[in-house]
């Protein structure tokens, strides 16, 4: 399972197998979506597959994820998602009512995000060859003029913001999947981020980097940005918005909230002088109410992400490799 975890093994798979095989300049950027010109239009184009278990969880379902995942990938280029495709792979024997609920969730999520599902496909595989329901979505959207958002634009001096509390989706999934409760119920943060991005672009269209820290969490996303831009990123531990239930669950399970998946949060990197205004813009939007500045880009230790602890020490935050293994002796 290590190759799907969103950590270093996924990165290696993409870098060593897929990029060389498909070699072209549009793909080279390793961003969540491709940005290119078609006719007169600057388009963002993205695809994602959804294989989550369980299919339904507190705060959402695979249907919500399938829409929001692709809408968010497009939003991370500054694009407003316009049209989505949707492919279902159904396992023989899955209940029709389940598929119906998922389809309804998909439709509802599309309406909420303001995107049209323009085309679709369904395949059925033999029982035992799937996990009930897999969904693939792809989407296109227009990138507004003058917007140039990509990881390479992170520069020393920029500030790093997060739109809200982290680690919520991963812990919500785990608590239903494993039937484990950490006090208060944790509900997934699954949400479309295109509205929030539009609000941020209304403050300035010079956002440098946007990223939705899904699988692999904040740590993985920031490591990718640090390496792509050749900058160091320094986080302030005390500034990280971690809800108590997530903190409890993580400390119990020996996990770090920085590595836990989110489905309705974004990371933004903007010029220091734009930081306050962008933060205010985010907080004015319902999905950014808990937004916070969590760190900055620095010239020191390029390619490396670190956290400053309350006691002033500086801990390295790497890309996780496969499953988390203890290093304590």
């Amino acid at each position, binding site marked *: 399972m290590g190759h799907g975890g969103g950590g270093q093994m996924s990165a290696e798979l993409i870098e060593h197998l897929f990029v060389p095989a498909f070699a072209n300049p549009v793909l080279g950027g390793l961003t969540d979506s491709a940005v290119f010109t078609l006719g007169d239009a600057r388009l963002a184009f993205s695809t994602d597959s959804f294989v989550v278990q369980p299919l339904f969880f507190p705060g959402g379902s695979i249907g919500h994820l399938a829409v929001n995942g692709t809408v968010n990938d497009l939003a991370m280029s500054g694009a407003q998602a316009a049209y989505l495709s949707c492919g279902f792979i159904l396992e023989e024997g899955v209940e029709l009512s389940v598929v119906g609920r998922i389809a309804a969730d998909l439709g509802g999520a599309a309406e909420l995000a303001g995107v049209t599902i323009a085309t679709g496909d369904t395949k059925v595989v033999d029982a035992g060859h799937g996990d009930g329901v897999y969904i693939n979505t792809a989407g296109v959207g227009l990138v507004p003029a003058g917007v140039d958002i990509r990881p390479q634009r992170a520069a020393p001096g920029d500030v790093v913001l997060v739109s809200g509390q982290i680690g919520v989706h991963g812990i919500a999934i*785990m608590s239903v999947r*494993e*039937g*484990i*409760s*950490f*006090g208060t119920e944790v509900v997934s943060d699954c949400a479309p981020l295109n509205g929030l991005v539009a609000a941020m672009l209304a403050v300035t269209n010079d956002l440098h980097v946007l990223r939705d820290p899904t699988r692999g969490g904040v740590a993985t996303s920031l490591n990718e940005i640090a390496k792509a831009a050749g900058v160091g990123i320094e986080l302030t531990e005390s500034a990280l918005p971690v809800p108590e239930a997530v903190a409890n669950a993580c*400390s*119990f*399970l*020996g*996990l770090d909230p920085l590595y836990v998946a989110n489905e309705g949060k974004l990371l933004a990197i903007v010029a220091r002088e734009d930081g306050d205004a962008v933060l205010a813009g985010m907080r004015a939007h319902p999905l950014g109410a808990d937004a916070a500045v969590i760190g900055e880009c620095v010239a020191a*230790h390029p390619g*490396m992400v*670190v956290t400053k*602890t309350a*006691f*002033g*020490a*500086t*801990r*390295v935050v*790497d890309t*996780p*490799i*496969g499953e*988390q*293994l*203890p*290093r*304590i*002796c």
Partner: protein
Amino acid sequence: PGGGRITNEPERVRSRLLVTGVVQGVGFRPFVYALARELGLSGQVGNTAAGVVAEVEGSAAAVTAFGDRVRTDAPPLAVVRTVTPQPVPALGGTEFVILDSIAGPGRTLVSPDVATCADCLAEFADPSDRRYRHPFISCTNCGPRFTIITGLPYDRPATTMAHFPLCPDCAREYSDPADRRFHAQPIACPACGPRLNLVQPGHETAYDEDALATAHRLLVDGAILAVKGLGGFHLVCDAADEAVVTTLRKRKDRGDKPFAVMAADLDMARRIAEVDAAEEELLTGIRHPIVLLRRRAGAAVAEAVAPGNPDLGVMLPYTPLHQLLFDQPGPCVLVMTSGNLSGEPIVTSDHAARSRLSGLADAWLGHDRPIHVPCDDSVVRIVDETELPVRRSRGYAPFPIDLPRPVRPALAVGGDLKNTFCVGDGQYAWLSAHVGDMDDLATLRAFDGAELHLEQLTGVRPEVLVTDKHPSYRSRQWAVLNAAGRPVVGVQHHHAHLASVMAEHRYDGDRVIGFAFDGTGYGDDGAVWGGEVLLAGYDGFDRHAHLKYVQLPGGDAGVRNPCRMALSHLKAAGIGWDPRLPSYLACAGPEHDLLVTQLDRDIACAPTSSMGRLFDAVSSLAGVCHRAGYEAQAAIELEGLASVEAGLGAYEFAIEGEEIDPAPVLAGVVRDVLSGVSPGVVSARFHQGLAELMVSVAERVRDAEGLSTVALSGGVFVNRVLLSATTRALSAAGFTVLRHRRVPPTDAGLALGQLAVAASQR
């Protein structure tokens, strides 16, 4: 013989002696000079690639005496391996000449830092001496070395003493072969040497005796001082003052981890702890490490110094400045802990000390002699009159370790906790000073600096890099990033542990019956290994047996919570969780419910064969320690309680094929605990049970394979009770036992084993 005069005796003979071993950079040539003069011999001495070559000429008796005494009287740091004399024609003459080092393929070995010697201490205490109370007194036999060298050849301009030009008096001593300070690079005096200063926020900087007086008053008043030592700053306070020690603990974010103390002198050390003859020798010897001693009941040391710990880490003053901290009425025992932020490496520069330690210290006692290389205090334990290194740093590094087999030029990067690394080439390996835990950015930087420095000092140009196999180890990532086309070779963690003890013994025989017991190491099957019996040679190993796998709930979280490990072990052993068990009581409420689900559904659990975790489990079951605030706390406290009474019996392990099942041990512990047997007896039975297990496993291997050498390594063997019982039992059963005496059994010794495995050449 001796004391003769050069005369024109007809029967003059001349001999050329090649002296090999560790004889360079340890004051060997001045020693040879002095010895030759004392014996009335003429001739010369020089360094070559092969070793020190001395030619001596004089009476046959004197030449023979020289050959003997060059071995027996060698300077304290030297290790003479062979002395090979060869007769050569007599040349006449009366002079004895020290030749400059011959440049070329030979290696100049750099000495570790040495505690102030008795001769210097006598001058220091003599009001008529020009170095009376001089905070920087040193000579050929003592003082800073490794920590002040900026480059080679080792000469004053290549040290941090470069900007202290010698005054005429010091220059005379420096250039007189008969003087104790001949070519002693760090020498100084009040006229030409560094000066003390004391910085206290809101006050003017004080110098020299004023600085000392102020520092002293601050210590008496219960302040915390940052004091510049040989290899870095210490944080210092009165060890008897509960309030200030508690404050230091809070400021350092230290948990319950013990602090080391410095006692004014041996007498004072004896008043707070039990000191046997071997420990006395270590405390007062040339290296002056921290020695782990049994604390005396009622010792005048605050409880906060080492809460719940039966031992005290004690050292004696090893620099003249330390002597001065004790020379007025005031505290006789000082806490002396590394000056650093939690998790960071020791601070060495005045600038970093002021900024990094600003929230920790109330004032700074420093001086203007820079520290070029960080070097923490070494920590040593005596077990059965033998040294057991716990941290090998000041006084030891960069002393080379001579290897059983030559190695190609290589760098082994060690592990991720308590990191040290190792460079090797040919016959020698150099294990670095303590670097620290590699999850800290400042530590990674310190690793960069130390690695570069050690390459410079030793002249090793690594052609291969060696690492642990753990995919997430930062040491391994460092090697991959810095490989520059060189091969990077992984060595299994416990194989490296065993190779380290084999290498330090220069063992090169059959495979050993290797017991590698520690907390965590990445196994070849991806599991967390740590209770391993490997039949090991440098070229490979067979996993002969291991502790049966058990769930480690929550990875690092399981390590920090021994009570959870106890319940996990009971579950694996099929033993019910009796609500009267201390572990059950410690893990109540929601934690209990979560743990049940976690273990049942195997959520974030790693399979482990760790011996460290079995110690945790037993410690918690016996009611000793349920939460570990520092590494191995539960095991350390369990060991500390072990009853020394004989004939208490032992718990028995079950051995099935390659699985060692602790289920009957756990059943025995539970039975005893529930029937009110004391933790001390439970601990003794557990330790004895392990010793007996090891003997029966070793006997099984001997019967099947004919092997008879046993090697013990891994952090569990820092345990004095276990190490002692095991060595005794195995020796009694006729096994040769290799145990650590020069490098730590913990991951701090791992790099040596990595090097020995991956770079050995036949």
